[in-house]
């Protein structure tokens, strides 16, 4: 009787051990499975991103050599301006200092490279930053980049709206003297959207994380320097 009881007990211990072993194996395999799911998800992200990245782009005429912005002027000092058409601080900069920049270009003191980046697509429901930037490429096609840029900042839509429609962009283009037909098809076809992506990518790569960013011969201006006097001083200092 008592030896039987002992046998029963021993069998139970063995059963429990087997069960525990099984459970451990199961835990290991579930963990491996879950880890695989996470790794695969990451790889999918990478693959999707790689496929989205367009390798080719068409830069508009008057783009700089690298195709990362529109060049204006022939001066010795290079001023790089990174702006998003949706960015209120950029509009403010244009309002206060735009004429100074134009003046410096006309005086042959600076060569301005204007980079219309699309950082702020999330502030419109229609990716206005990208559409506006691509349209500015179309304006460069018609040799009216500067005029178009000024007009867009003057009519800047509020953040978190739908932005200006393509039709409105086309009207603005025509109003600054671009041929309506060519401009219209350029905007509607999104001819320069891949260029916008290239411009934006290059800006991020070169350390630009916010707009407006103004670089005078490579030096980033402080916010307090983004005034007519500040820019003139920075250009004068860089030209020496």
């Amino acid at each position, binding site marked *: 009787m008592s030896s039987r009881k002992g046998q029963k007990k021993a069998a139970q211990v063995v059963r429990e051990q087997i069960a525990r072993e099984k459970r451990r194996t199961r835990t290991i395999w579930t963990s491996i499975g879950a880890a695989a799911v996470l790794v695969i998800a990451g790889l999918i992200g990478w693959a999707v991103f790689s496929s989205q990245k367009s390798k080719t782009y068409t830069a508009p005429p008057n783009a700089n050599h690298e195709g990362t912005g529109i060049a204006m002027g022939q001066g010795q000092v290079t001023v790089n301006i990174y702006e998003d058409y949706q960015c209120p601080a950029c509009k403010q900069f244009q309002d206060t200092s735009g004429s100074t920049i134009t003046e410096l270009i006309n005086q042959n003191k600076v060569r301005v490279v204007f980079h219309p980046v699309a950082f702020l*697509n999330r502030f419109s429901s229609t990716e206005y930053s990208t559409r506006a930037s691509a349209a500015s490429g179309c304006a460069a096609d018609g040799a009216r980049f500067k005029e178009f840029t000024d007009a867009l900042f003057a009519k800047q839509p509020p953040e978190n709206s739908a932005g200006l429609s393509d039709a409105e962009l086309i009207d603005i283009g025509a109003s600054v003297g671009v041929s309506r037909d060519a401009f219209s098809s350029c905007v509607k076809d999104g001819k320069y959207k891949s260029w916008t992506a290239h411009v934006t990518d290059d800006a*991020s790569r070169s350390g630009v994380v916010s707009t407006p960013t103004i670089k005078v011969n490579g030096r980033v201006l402080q916010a307090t320097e983004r005034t007519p006097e500040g820019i003139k001083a920075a250009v004068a200092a860089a030209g020496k």
Partner: protein
Amino acid sequence: MTVTAPNARPGRWAVLRPWLGAAARLGLAAVWLFAGASKVGDLAASGRAVNAYQVMPYDLATVIGAVLPFVELALGVLLIVGLATRLVAGVSAALLVVFIAGIASAWARGLAIDCGCFGSGGQLAAGQAPSYLPEILRDLGFLVLAGFLLIWPRTPFALDGWLAGKAPEEGEDE
């Protein structure tokens, strides 16, 4: 350990714990799903948000920015179904610690960025001040959820429990 479970009511914590765990699991799942979904639509922007922290080269930041939303979504799905909860909670906790460190470092370096935790990220809107402290506190809250699941991964309505058959005896296997 036993301080939180006074002897006067021994059964209470034992009854409550699985349900707290289920709530933590589903809550953390919602956080990850929301975080991932808000970024997955614009992977380039997600990369820029990572780049805005200025802690790694741009090319690496774009890869991290593209991978992260998908991993977050996968974490959310694994938590919802309750598979390998302890491992997933561990990965979640590790990620959250990295996020908190990133935000703290951006704060310490005086950067003015949005954490990019739930979409957006990078540059702030006009006139907007960074809100690093609320962002860190929020992530610490999520970290508590992950920590709970790390310690007590077994919760009701989870594949883990279904796979294991009957619930293990107290203290065993967990």
